[in-house]
């Protein structure tokens, strides 16, 4: 995509992830103020506020954009709220990009934040057999069930082992130990992972991400605005992919209990389609990527994503990880932030958190986590009901 379709990231900000148990608005405002400070943009200058919604915090969560705008102090900006499960932050960013590229505004604030309950994510109460999310829980099928089914496939098809999965956790824990915004900052060994209890065979507790509280925000603008305000070298958003799956979707996905039937239309994979569209939009390829932030809901899923991003051939991500290439200091660091392994999932903030990390990496501001010479970063994530996203940042 040519520069006329790009926008600039002027600032990124986060509220540290944790299990703080406080109101999500506090995390969002904290992150927004941090992003505004980094961008040196006064709040009054923001012309559009784009929020990622949370489903767990009542009405203020459904209208998160307005909730954050009020908490920052109503100043008459245009407002929007997006919900797209784990891709909510990317859709909120896409709304801001559309406003900026259409000339309706020059500078925008994108914010997502969440407060999550403990334990398994679970559906709202009531008897709703027509809701696939209710139905699968009634049958005893949780999110880790799906992660484990995919992990077992890797073991059978590619020869991956539980030690290969543990290596991903060890690597991400080492990255997160250097990240002040991460919830878990302890280093672990493969033996630690192996000693944690099995949750969904073959995955152990330490293979699966937790749910967290947190907030993340970006200040974005037109390239012209960036130049006029001393941000000519700011990282740019080169692509935002939020495509749906294509029928017939061939892998059983949360929250479904069956795949589409592929008798009339051939089978299609979903995860790999997300970055494919992003590469096409940015006009670059996987060989150009210097750093990636992927959705490691489980350790094994990080390996799937590495292949879906075409960073190595199918089935070779475990070997790539063993080689050390995906560590900071390696050829192609993956999840330098520590990933979900160290953050836990704060749904509407998570896609934005991935972009915050890449923005800091591209600016050379990542401190002990810095990926040397990072020029192109890509994110990938997937949530429920056919939502997912892949965003490319470059400098």
């Amino acid at each position: 995509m040519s520069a006329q379709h790009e926008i600039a990231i002027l600032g990124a900000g986060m509220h540290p992830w944790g299990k703080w148990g406080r109101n999500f608005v506090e995390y969002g405002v904290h992150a927004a103020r941090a992003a505004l400070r980094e961008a040196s943009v006064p709040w009054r200058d923001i012309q559009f506020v784009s929020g990622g919604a949370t489903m767990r915090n009542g009405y203020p969560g459904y209208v998160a954009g307005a909730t954050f705008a009020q908490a920052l102090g109503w100043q008459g900006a245009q407002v929007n709220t997006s919900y797209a499960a784990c891709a909510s932050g990317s859709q909120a960013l896409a709304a801001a990009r559309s406003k900026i590229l259409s000339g309706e505004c020059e500078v925008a604030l994108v914010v997502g934040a969440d407060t999550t309950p403990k334990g398994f994510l679970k559906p709202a109460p009531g008897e709703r057999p027509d809701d696939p999310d209710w139905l699968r829980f009634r049958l005893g099928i949780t999110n880790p069930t799906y992660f484990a089914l995919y992990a077992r496939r890797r073991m059978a098809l590619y020869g991956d082992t539980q030690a290969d999965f543990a290596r991903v956790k060890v690597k991400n824990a080492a990255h997160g130990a250097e990240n002040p915004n991460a919830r878990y900052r302890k280093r672990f060994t493969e033996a630690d992972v192996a000693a944690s209890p099995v949750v969904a065979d073959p995955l152990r507790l330490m293979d699966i991400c937790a749910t967290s509280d947190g907030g993340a925000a970006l200040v974005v603008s037109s390239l012209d605005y960036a130049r006029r305000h001393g941000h000519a070298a700011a990282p740019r958003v080169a692509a935002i992919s939020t495509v749906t799956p294509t029928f017939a979707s061939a892998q059983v996905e949360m929250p479904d209990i069956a795949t589409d039937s592929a008798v009339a239309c051939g089978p299609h994979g979903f995860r790999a389609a997300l970055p494919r569209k992003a590469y096409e939009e940015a006009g670059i390829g996987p060989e150009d990527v210097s750093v990636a932030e992927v959705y490691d809901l489980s350790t094994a899923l990080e390996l799937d994503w590495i292949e879906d991003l075409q960073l190595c051939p199918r089935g070779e991500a475990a070997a790539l990880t063993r080689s050390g290439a995906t560590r900071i200091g390696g050829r192609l660091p993956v999840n330098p932030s520590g990933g979900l392994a160290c953050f836990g999932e704060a749904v509407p903030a998570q896609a934005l958190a991935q972009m915050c990390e890449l923005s800091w990496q591209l600016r050379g501001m990542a401190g002990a986590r810095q990926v040397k010479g990072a020029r192109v970063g890509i994110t990938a994530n997937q949530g429920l009901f056919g939502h997912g996203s892949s965003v490319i940042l470059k400098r």
Partner: protein
Amino acid sequence: MDAPTPARPLMDGWFTLDPAHPHLLGNRCTRCGTYYFPKLRTGYCRNPDCDGETFEEIELSNEGTLWSYTDAAYAPPPPYVAADPHVPFGIAAVQLEKERMVVLGQLATGTELRNLELGQPMKLVLEALEDGRLVWKWQPLEGAK
């Protein structure tokens, strides 16, 4: 003593109740042939190239091959009704050849995960959940291992 009351299905119309040869009940677009399980109830085929609006109820194949498997070592949250203490159960994803789809279900009680292998033949059985409600489960074709 009265004979035990047969277990009540968890949902009506999702599977046949013949204990020897149970089938999942789905439907099928009469125009493009796409199968649906659970049954498509919107009345509009989900194949993007098909404008089919009529569907026939069908019994899905009750045998398939193992696509993947796992277990639930911890009690799932409500609306799952867990026994106390929770008894871990297996979960299978089974590929149906004719329908070209994968269907999830619990593994029949007593199925040992360590004996399973992807691609092995599986069959549908009816069995009660921990709360006594009847559902479909998957079992290795050569009897419970």
